[in-house]
C-alpha cells in the first residue's frame, strides 16, 4: 500500500470489521457504574434553579432579586435575561430562563426562585401552526415568512397531461427529543481562570469553546468532561442558557460546583423541538403510473425562528414542480436538530401524497415506486435492490391488497406500505448528523494505519527486511513471504524504545474511507380497529444501506431504535399547545408519550452489506432509519382503512374522525 493512501481491508482479511461485537461500554452501563452528568455529586456542590418566564411572548420590565439574595442557603444569583437583554427584554417562549440561583439544596433553590419578583409586559402570542395560512395575509404579517415560489419544468402542462391527479393534506406536528437524561451541567472553577464543565452533551470536543465565547474567556481554559450521555438525538450539540448560567453562578459562589439539571416539564417545553411540516399537495401521473407533476403549498413552525423552506418532494426528482412554502413564527421553545432534521417530515408529506396517488391509479405502491425508480437517481439501483429485499422480508407481494373496504366495521384490517429514506451529511466532530461512525471510524482507521506503518518502519531493520515486505497478522509482525521471520507484537513494540508512538488520525471528509448518501426502504404492517381508531403495529421491516458496516450489532441497534422513535412520532408524539394561555399542555411523560415495549410488534432489520456496498466506505446510520417509519405507518393506516388520516400523530380520535368524514362524504380518499 502506498504511503499516503488508506483503504479498508478486503472482506477476506477482516478479523473484527463486520463481526458481531459486543458494546465495549455494555458492562459499565449494565452495572450502573456509568456516570452521567445528572449523577455527579461533588464536594460542596450547590443546586441551580431558575425563574422562567411563564408567558409565551413578553417583555421583562423589572427584576427584584433582593429577597432571594438575603435567603439563608442561597449562594449566588445571576440575571440571565433582564429588561435590557435582547430587544428591550423581549422573551419569545414560555420557559425562557430569566434569573438563575444556586443554593445548598434543591428545596432552597426552589424557594429562592419563588422569592424573586419579575414584572412582565405580556405581548400577543401565536403557539399553533397546523392551520393553513392564507398567502395574502401571510405576506403582510410578521408572524409568517413567505418563501419565494419555486418552479421546476412546466408544471401547468404536466398537470394538463396527467391522466390521474390527486390532492390531499399531509403533515406532522412539532415534537421534542425527550431524552431520558434531561439537559444540564455541573460547572466549577478550580481557580479563578479555569472552568471545569461536566455537561450532558453530544459535543464534548466543541462545547467548551462555545461556553468560553459566551462568557468571554480563553477556550483553552475550559475543560469539558463527560463519559456518558443519556440521549441527545441532536438536542445536545450547542450552547444552553442554563449551562452558561451554571458557570456564572459557580464563579459568583467562589468557584464551588453548581449543578443545573432541567426537570422534565422544562425539558419538554424548552430543550429543543422538531419543527412541524404541513402541506396541501397535488400530484399528477399518466394512467400507467408515470409520475409527471407535483404542486405543494407547505407551512410549518419550529419556534420563534420561522423555518425558511422545506425540500419537498423528498428524494423524488419529479420532472415538473411548483412549490410554495410559508414559515410560521410560534412563541414556543426553539427547534434543534432532531435526528435527521426535516427528513422525517418531508418523507411523511411526500410518500403520503405518492401513496395516495398510487391508490387512485389502482396500483400497488411497490409497483408505482419501481415504475418511477429512475426518479430516485442516484440511488435508483440501491433502492430497487432494497425494495426486493424488503418484499422478501415482509412478503409484501403475497400479502398486499388494495385499499380497505370499510363496510366491515370492527374487524381489524392489515395493510402494508413502503418508504424511502435518505441522508446526506458531511462529517463533523460532534456526535450527531450520522457522522460519528464515518468521522470517528475513518479517523481511527487512519490513526491505526499510520501507527502500524510507523511501527513497521522501526521494526523492519530487526527483521532484515524492508517495511513494504512486512505485514501484521495474528498478533505478530512478520515478513509476508516468510512467516518464520517474525516478532511478537510485544517484541515489536519494544523496538520503540522509550518513545511511544502517538498518532492522530484525521478525517479528511468524503473519499475512499467514508461516504455519504444512503438509502433505505421501510415497510409497515398495521391493524386498525375501525370502531375505535386504535392502530396496532404488527410488523415493521427496515432495509438500510450504510456502506461498510463496522459493527453490525450496533448498526442494527441504531436502526431498531430509529424504528421505535418512528412508532412514537407516528402514533403518540406531539407538543400540545394552548393558544389562549400560550402554554404547553402535555408537560410530563404521562401525556408526552413514548412507545413502551408492548406498543411495538415485530421489528426486522436487514443491513445491505457486501460487494457493491462495502466499497463505498463507512457511512453514518444514526439518522437515516428515523426518516421513514412515520410515513410507512401513515400509509399502512391509509391502506387499511381506505382513508388518509392527514396529520400525525395517528391518535385514535384523528383516525376515527377521518373515517367518519369519509363516510359522510360517501367516498374514500
Amino acid at each position: 500500500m502506498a504511503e499516503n493512501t488508506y483503504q479498508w481491508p478486503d472482506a477476506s482479511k477482516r478479523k473484527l470489521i463486520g463481526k458481531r461485537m459486543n458494546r465495549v461500554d455494555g458492562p459499565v452501563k449494565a452495572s450502573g457504574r456509568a456516570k452521567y452528568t445528572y449523577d455527579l455529586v461533588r464536594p460542596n456542590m450547590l443546586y441551580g434553579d431558575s425563574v422562567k418566564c411563564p408567558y409565551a411572548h413578553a417583555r421583562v420590565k423589572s427584576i427584584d432579586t433582593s429577597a432571594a439574595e438575603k435567603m439563608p442557603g442561597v449562594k449566588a444569583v445571576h440575571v440571565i435575561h433582564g429588561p435590557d437583554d435582547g430587544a428591550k427584554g423581549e422573551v419569545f417562549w414560555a420557559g425562557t430562563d430569566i434569573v438563575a440561583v444556586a443554593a445548598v439544596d434543591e428545596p432552597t433553590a426552589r424557594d429562592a426562585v419563588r422569592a424573586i419578583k419579575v414584572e412582565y409586559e405580556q405581548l400577543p402570542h401565536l403557539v399553533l401552526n397546523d392551520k393553513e395560512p392564507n398567502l395574502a395575509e401571510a405576506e403582510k404579517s410578521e408572524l409568517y415568512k413567505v418563501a419565494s415560489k419555486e418552479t421546476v419544468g412546466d408544471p401547468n402542462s404536466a398537470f394538463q397531461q396527467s391522466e390521474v391527479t390527486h390532492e390531499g393534506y399531509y403533515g406532522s406536528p412539532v415534537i421534542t427529543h425527550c431524552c431520558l437524561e434531561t439537559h444540564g451541567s455541573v460547572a466549577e472553577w478550580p481557580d479563578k481562570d479555569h472552568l471545569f464543565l461536566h455537561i450532558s452533551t453530544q459535543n464534548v470536543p466543541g462545547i467548551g469553546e462555545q461556553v468560553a465565547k459566551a462568557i468571554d474567556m480563553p477556550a483553552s481554559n475550559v475543560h469539558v468532561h463527560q463519559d456518558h450521555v443519556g440521549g441527545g438525538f441532536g438536542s445536545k450539540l450547542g450552547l444552553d442558557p442554563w449551562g452558561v448560567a451554571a458557570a456564572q453562578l459557580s464563579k459568583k459562589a467562589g468557584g464551588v460546583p453548581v449543578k443545573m439539571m432541567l426537570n422534565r416539564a422544562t425539558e419538554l417545553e424548552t430543550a429543543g423541538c422538531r419543527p412541524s411540516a404541513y402541506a396541501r399537495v397535488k400530484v399528477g401521473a399518466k394512467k400507467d403510473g408515470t409520475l409527471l407533476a407535483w404542486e405543494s403549498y407547505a407551512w410549518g413552525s419550529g419556534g420563534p425562528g420561522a423555518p425558511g423552506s422545506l425540500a419537498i418532494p423528498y428524494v423524488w426528482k419529479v420532472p415538473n414542480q411548483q412549490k410554495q412554502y410559508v414559515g410560521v413564527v410560534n412563541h414556543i421553545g426553539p427547534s434543534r436538530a432532531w435526528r435527521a432534521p426535516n427528513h422525517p417530515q418531508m418523507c411523511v408529506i411526500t410518500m403520503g401524497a405518492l401513496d395516495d396517488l398510487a391508490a387512485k391509479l389502482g396500483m400497488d405502491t411497490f409497483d408505482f415506486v419501481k415504475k418511477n425508480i429512475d426518479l430516485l437517481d442516484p440511488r435508483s439501483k440501491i433502492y430497487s435492490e432494497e425494495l426486493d429485499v424488503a418484499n422478501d422480508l415482509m412478503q409484501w407481494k403475497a400479502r398486499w391488497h388494495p385499499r380497505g373496504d370499510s363496510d366491515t366495521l370492527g374487524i381489524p384490517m392489515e395493510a402494508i406500505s413502503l418508504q424511502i429514506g435518505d441522508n446526506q451529511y458531511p462529517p463533523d466532530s460532534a456526535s450527531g448528523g450520522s457522522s460519528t461512525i464515518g468521522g470517528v471510524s475513518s479517523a481511527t482507521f487512519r490513526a491505526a494505519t499510520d501507527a502500524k506503518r510507523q511501527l513497521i518502519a522501526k521494526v523492519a531493520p530487526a527483521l532484515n527486511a524492508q517495511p513494504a515486505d512486512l505485514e501484521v497478522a495474528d498478533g505478530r509482525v512478520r515478513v509476508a513471504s516468510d512467516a518464520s521471520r517474525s516478532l511478537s507484537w510485544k517484541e515489536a513494540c519494544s523496538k520503540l524504545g522509550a518513545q511511544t508512538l502517538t498518532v492522530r488520525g484525521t478525517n479528511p471528509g468524503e473519499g475512499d474511507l467514508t461516504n455519504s448518501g444512503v438509502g433505505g426502504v421501510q415497510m409497515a404492517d398495521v391493524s386498525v380497529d375501525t370502531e375505535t381508531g386504535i392502530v396496532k403495529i404488527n410488523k415493521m421491516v427496515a432495509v438500510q444501506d450504510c456502506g461498510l458496516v463496522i459493527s453490525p450489532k450496533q448498526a442494527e441497534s441504531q436502526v431498531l431504535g430509529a424504528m421505535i422513535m418512528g412508532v412514537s412520532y407516528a402514533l403518540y408524539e406531539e407538543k400540545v399547545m394552548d393558544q389562549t394561555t400560550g402554554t404547553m399542555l402535555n408537560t410530563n411523560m404521562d401525556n408526552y408519550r413514548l412507545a413502551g415495549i408492548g406498543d411495538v410488534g415485530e421489528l426486522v432489520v436487514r443491513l445491505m452489506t457486501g460487494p457493491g456496498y462495502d466499497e463505498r466506505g463507512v457511512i453514518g446510520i444514526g439518522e437515516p432509519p428515523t426518516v421513514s417509519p412515520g410515513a410507512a405507518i401513515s400509509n399502512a393506516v391509509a391502506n387499511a382503512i381506505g382513508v388518509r388520516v392527514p396529520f400525525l400523530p395517528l391518535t385514535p380520535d384523528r383516525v376515527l374522525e377521518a373515517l367518519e368524514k369519509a363516510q359522510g362524504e360517501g367516498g374514500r380518499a
Partner: protein
Amino acid sequence: MKKELIELRVNGRSREVAIEPAKLLLDTLREDLQLTGSKRGCDDSSCGACTVLVDGTPMLSCTMIAASISVDDEGHAPEITTIEGVAEHGAMAAIQKAYGDWGGAQCGYCTPGFIMTVKALLERNPEPSDEDIRHALSGNLCRCTGYTQMYQAIKAAIRAEQQGIAAARR
C-alpha cells in the same frame, strides 16, 4: 428543615444517613449513598428509570420517601436492592452481561431500571414467554433501543444461568 438520622438496608448492608424527612428514596440513594445507578427520568412516576427492588419487588424509588422504609422502632426494614447490588462477589450477573452483549443498552440511562425489573421477573418466573417479558417490562421506557434486542438479551441470560447451574451441579 432539620435533618434526621435514619437507617436503610441497602444491598445487604445497613446504611445510616442524615437527611431531611421529606427526601425521596431515589435522591437519598444517589446523593447520600453514592448509588447513582438508579436514575431520575420523568418527575411523574411514569418512566421506570429509578426502579429498585424492595424485598425483591420492583418499585419506583422516585415515588418513595426514604424515611418511610427506614428501620422502624422494632428494628425492621425492607431490603432495598439497587443495580449496584445485582453483581455478586464482583462478578456481573448473567443478565447484566447479556444486556451489554446483546445491545440491550444504547445510551444506557434506562438500563439499570430495566435490569431490576428483569431480575425480579426471572426470580418469579425463570422461563418467561415473550408475552410474560412484554408484560413485566411494560412499565420501563426506553428512548433509544427499540426493545427488540432486550428479548434476546433476557433469553441469553436465562441460557447462561441454566448452563451455570448445570455446570455447578457437575
